[in-house]
């Protein structure tokens, strides 16, 4: 038995606690049955005609209550436990002891992921899932919804756990704000999947590289794959936390997977804005790919940012052994590289359009738009890196995040109508400008961010040398 899982079971699954939780869940389920079933019919005799079979109605009510309780127990409460799984160890001073043990990264990951929310899972398995199946039946649709709930819970736990681990990697101390942030991210991920259990309404058709996909099954498969990648992320982060040498190759595989998925995905039947001019399909695929790459890049820049020492080590390795340095390259740089590939893909797709398309005739400068998006992402991730590279980083990182939010959302809305497009191009891609006017401002900002990062890293290096000189 995994010792970490066993330890969590000892801590989390006391008999009294389990009994109290199970009793509370059962009381709510029985309450739902009684209120929605015979009791309610007895109180309101006319309801019998409205609902048909009152027993069936009561079963549906129990299934609905079980579904809600699964969300509360697994996604709300279980995610809190997963978020705190590593951070609580740091707070209690036991994390170093765990890092020193012989428990491997995979065993440590699943021991904590499954062990920390063990009480929630036990109540779910013993009480809530049987109640759901009793109420909803075992038809395919009921099982599909249940699968979504379980996947949403695992994904929520994995996301919260990953955020908690990323704080541990940055040597952050445990605080309520840190745990709350990890919890919130997990909940958002969990409920995003939970909400998609209802499937896709309307005449939407999906295809991947020309192969038609049933939307509901595709969504379930996508949820499963997303959950799997989150678990892989947990494992890779745990390797780093346990000081096991970890190269970024799995991250590159993930980016390639994401590029392949978004590059080949085609969605038709979505409601369209009247009068909108859609770009060619190849360009749309490239844009979707670019956005996916940028989302992954931003996540990497925030979750796994190198500190000044990491940058110095990388620069030193690049000078001595460039090929080996690839293994030390900050992973968000690989994201930017893939994003650049998506930009090239989009430009080529536009260039291959034969004749004069409606999109081409519109005033949107598609090629420059992609390049400008990439330049803004480079600026943002370098600014974030500079903020993470300084020792007292927390306030500066928040400052950069506020700046990014202001520059994309608040300022364009506030001054967009009063300043010329050439000025607005410093804040957002101004799609109707010519290529130079659209690309030069964000490229210049990216250059400034690069200079800032280099100066921060050099400044800390000078501090280290000065400290060494004082001592000797």
């Amino acid at each position, binding site marked *: *038995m995994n*010792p*970490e899982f*066993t*330890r969590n079971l*000892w*801590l989390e699954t006391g008999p009294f606690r389990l009994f109290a939780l199970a009793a509370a869940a059962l009381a709510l389920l029985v309450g739902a049955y009684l209120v929605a079933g015979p009791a309610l019919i007895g109180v309101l005799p006319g309801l019998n005609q409205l609902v048909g079979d009152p027993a069936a109605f009561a079963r549906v009510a129990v299934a609905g209550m079980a579904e809600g309780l699964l969300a509360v127990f697994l996604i709300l409460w279980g995610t809190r436990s997963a978020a705190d799984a590593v951070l609580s*160890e740091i707070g*209690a*001073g*036991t*994390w*170093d*002891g*765990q*890092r*020193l*043990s*012989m*428990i*491997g990264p995979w065993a440590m990951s699943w021991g904590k992921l499954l062990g920390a929310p063990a009480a929630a899972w036990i109540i779910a398995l013993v009480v809530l899932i049987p109640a759901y199946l009793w109420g909803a039946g075992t038809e395919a649709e009921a099982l599909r919804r249940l699968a979504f709930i379980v996947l949403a819970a695992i994904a929520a736990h994995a996301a919260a756990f990953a955020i908690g681990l990323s704080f541990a990697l940055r040597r952050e101390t445990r605080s309520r704000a840190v745990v709350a942030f990890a919890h919130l991210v997990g909940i958002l991920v969990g409920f995003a999947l939970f909400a998609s259990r209802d499937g896709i309404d309307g005449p939407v058709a999906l295809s991947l590289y020309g192969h038609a996909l049933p939307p509901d099954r595709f969504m379930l498969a996508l949820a499963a794959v997303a959950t799997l990648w989150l678990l892989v992320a947990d494992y890779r982060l745990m390797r780093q936390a*346990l*000081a*096991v*040498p970890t190269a970024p190759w799995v991250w590159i595989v993930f980016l390639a997977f994401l590029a392949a998925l978004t590059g080949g995905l085609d969605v038709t039947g979505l409601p369209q804005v009247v009068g909108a001019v859609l770009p060619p399909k190849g360009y749309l695929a490239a844009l979707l790919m670019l956005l996916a790459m940028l989302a992954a890049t931003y996540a990497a820049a925030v979750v796994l940012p190198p*500190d*000044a*020492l990491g940058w*110095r*080590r990388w620069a030193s390795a690049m000078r001595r052994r460039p090929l080996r340095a690839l293994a030390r390259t900050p992973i968000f740089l690989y994201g930017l590289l893939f994003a650049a590939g998506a930009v090239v893909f989009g430009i080529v797709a536009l260039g291959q359009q034969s004749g004069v398309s409606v999109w081409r005739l519109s005033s949107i400068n598609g090629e420059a738009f992609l390049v400008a998006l990439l330049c803004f992402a480079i600026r943002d991730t370098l600014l974030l890196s500079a903020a993470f*590279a*300084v*020792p007292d980083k927390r306030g500066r990182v928040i400052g950069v995040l506020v700046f990014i939010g202001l520059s994309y959302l608040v300022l364009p809305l506030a001054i967009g109508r009063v300043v010329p497009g050439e000025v607005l191009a410093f804040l957002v891609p101004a799609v109707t400008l010519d290529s130079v006017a659209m690309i030069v401002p964000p490229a210049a900002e990216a250059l400034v961010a690069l200079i800032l990062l280099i100066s921060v890293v050099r400044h*800390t290096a000078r*501090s*280290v*040398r000065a*400290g*060494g000189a004082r*001592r*000797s």
Partner: protein
Amino acid sequence: MISIDNLTFDYPTKRALTEVSCTIAAGSVTALVGPNGAGKTTLMRCLAGLDQPVTGAVAVDGVDVLAKPRLAHRHIGYLRDLFGLYDELSVRRCLAFHAAAFGVDRAERPARIAWAAEALGLTDRLGEKAGRLSRGLRQRLAIAQVVIHKPKVLLLDEPASGLDPEARMELSRFIVNLNGEGMTILVSSHILAELEDYSTDVLIVSGGRIVDHQHLHDRAGEGLSGRSAWLALRFVGETTAASVEASLRRQDQVRDVLPDGDMVRFRFVGTAEERARLLAALVADGIAVASFGEARDLVQDAYLKSVRRAAAPAAPEASP
């Protein structure tokens, strides 16, 4: 047993260790001493594979700690200065978890738990929750946890802090016992007199560098046994250090004579009666003995000399 090669460790704005190299012999008990902020804890964390140095290599029993940390941890036990316990678990479960986490065979675990509890005086506390133990008992439990897999190398960072004098004496005896079972031990402490009791070597760190590495005793606990001890003789009058040294070297039970000004330190192996006969022999040789007794300041003396030498602006740095 422990090989440290050219280890440099940086914090983002501070260099904590600079090109540290040394070898710690198997079976030794090495006192790691140095001023606050000298790099003792950082060195221990690098040895344990908890922190990654900028450059350099660490090997424990031939296993590269940086390349294969999980494998190296089979051979390492590390007690950090600010340790934590699972307060809600019983002492037995704390030990059971650590035994499992450090790869002790399932069949062997009960015996190992009993051994660790017995060795640390926790046998009658096995059913108590860790959170209800006193400071001293918590310290004992923490030590029991890190030795339960019988590591070849034990790293103890300030193990005696917070312990009362009796518990410190017990800790000293426990360290000697563990060393007797073959463990190589590195102990960091500010209580130098205590380190005298069980250390065979002293490693002095200052400003992130090793400034001295001395051998003190052949066996751990010689200072505790009363059979073998470092003695100090202070002389006066016409007596010279050379005459004292010559007189001492004629005695079979005397080893490692170290003259130092008007004092000579030497290691003596023998009983109290034999020690009395040595004093009589020295007086008979015409040595004007001003004082004669146990030298309790070997570590302290080495420490002060090395740190002062390292701090002197013009003084060249000692090689490790």
